[in-house]
């Protein structure tokens, strides 16, 4: 608002638009979180499998890409709930519009399913592959697909990494390309949501009993992801605070404004700094690994998306002179 404004009257009061935009609620926050988590459950098992060469992954990790498919299905369910014109949902798949991240995101979501399925089948060790083939109703095709996947495991891993990275990046760019919302007007949201997704994926996997080597590799990678996430958040805030008037308005929400307390306490301290410290101590063997750290990371990941989603909708050009 211009500083010398005395009175501003308008009768405009469209639902969910005025006086403050509120078009996306918990459904989109959950979808963005589950999208990032699925990205982690595709990329990390693929990279872990590559790092371990011919040694099979921990049993739980072999199924993680399939668990990712459950999560992304849940996320797509939330996305569907958010659509206002549900009977036109199929229209997403009649167009591919390069200027719309939501459009190429819809197509990436389709690629997630073969990537997750093939990566999981390719990651199964011999015993589990035999067990999968004994499931009577898919027995023979499952055996054949598993054998086909195992023979192309290298290619499938890179395919899963590419699709997972695309999915994680897209969840950030979905917001980051909507320049009318000052809080989202930064290209850093793409890498931030991707890194956050990898971190929540690692945290989710660390909730399961893994062998020592896998657990330590995941811890090491997660530590780096959290450090990168903190750096990206720092860059985002500095970028906003040192920018033009719209950027400074975006910075205000996180530096003294309505979202300051929840952002810094839930996301930065509880969701990033505490887990960073705990994981560093766990890696050095000073603290026993516990589910507390991964749970904090998951809560922080959800909070990051929910807070940025809400803060972004509140920030618009109407607040400027």
């Amino acid at each position, binding site marked *: 608002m211009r500083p010398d404004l005395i009175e*501003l009257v308008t009768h405009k009061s469209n639902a969910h638009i005025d006086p403050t935009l509120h*078009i996306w609620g918990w459904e989109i926050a959950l979808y963005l979180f589950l999208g990032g988590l699925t990205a982690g459950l595709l990329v990390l098992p693929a990279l872990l499998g590559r790092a371990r060469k011919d040694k099979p992954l921990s049993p739980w990790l072999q199924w993680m890409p399939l668990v990712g498919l459950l999560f992304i299905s849940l996320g797509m369910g939330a996305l569907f709930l958010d659509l206002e*014109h549900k009977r*036109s949902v199929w229209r997403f798949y009649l167009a591919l519009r390069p200027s719309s991240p939501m459009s190429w995101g*819809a197509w990436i979501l389709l690629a997630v399913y073969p990537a997750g399925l093939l990566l999981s089948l390719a990651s199964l060790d011999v015993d589990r592959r035999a067990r999968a083939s004994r499931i009577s109703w898919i027995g023979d095709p499952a055996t054949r697909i598993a054998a086909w996947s195992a023979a192309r495991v290298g290619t499938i891993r890179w395919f899963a990494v590419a699709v997972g990275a695309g999915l994680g990046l897209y969840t950030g760019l979905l917001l980051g390309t909507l320049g009318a919302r000052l809080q989202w007007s930064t290209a850093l949201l793409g890498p931030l949501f991707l890194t956050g997704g990898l971190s929540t994926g690692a945290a989710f996997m660390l909730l399961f009993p893994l062998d020592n080597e896998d657990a330590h590799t995941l811890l090491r990678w997660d530590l780096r992801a959290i450090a990168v996430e903190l750096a990206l958040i720092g860059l985002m805030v500095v970028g906003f605070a040192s920018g033009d008037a719209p950027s400074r308005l975006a910075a205000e929400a996180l530096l003294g404004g309505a979202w300051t307390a929840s952002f810094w306490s839930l996301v930065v301290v509880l969701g990033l700094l505490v887990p960073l410290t705990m994981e560093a101590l766990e890696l050095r063997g000073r603290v026993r690994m516990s589910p507390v750290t991964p749970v904090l990371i998951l809560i922080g990941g959800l909070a990051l998306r929910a807070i940025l989603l809400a803060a972004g909708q509140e920030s618009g050009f109407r607040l400027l002179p």
Partner: protein
Amino acid sequence: MARKRWVMVVDTRQCVACKACVLACKAENDVPDGYCRDWVVEEVHGEYPILHAENRSERCNHCTRAPCVGACPTGASHFFDGRVVLVTHDKCTGCKACIASCPYDARFVHPEGYVDKCTFCMHRVQRGDEPACVSICPTGTLRFGDANDAQSEVAALLRTRTWKVNHPETGVEPNVFFLT
């Protein structure tokens, strides 16, 4: 012949904020209760006793670089003849990306699920009439026409009067101009 560029010119010196434009739009376009495609802003600023009042009839700006068209995943939001931005209701999924991308918050979700907004009354313009808001305005505040036609009234007004657009810093090149 140059391509058409439909624009609206709002004379803030003539507007008395009677809101006839709002009612005409609601009646012409069957806009549901509680919603509006156009609205009036009454703004007073300055420091007493030096005050400045301005009334603006506002609507979708039909931006030349419309971010809503770029953000739409299905092509429902599109440019029509003369760079007018329209929404094909059947193609709209109600994902609301266009609403989030609009710096003017000019769109809303129609109770039937699709996204709705000002169309510059293209159904009337195509048969040679003015938009409903322009035709009803009792003070002649609102003018509509092809800015690429040098002989048109709007082109003359934009040549001879000082004007502004809302939030030029967005870079979207709006096509609703306010004479000051």
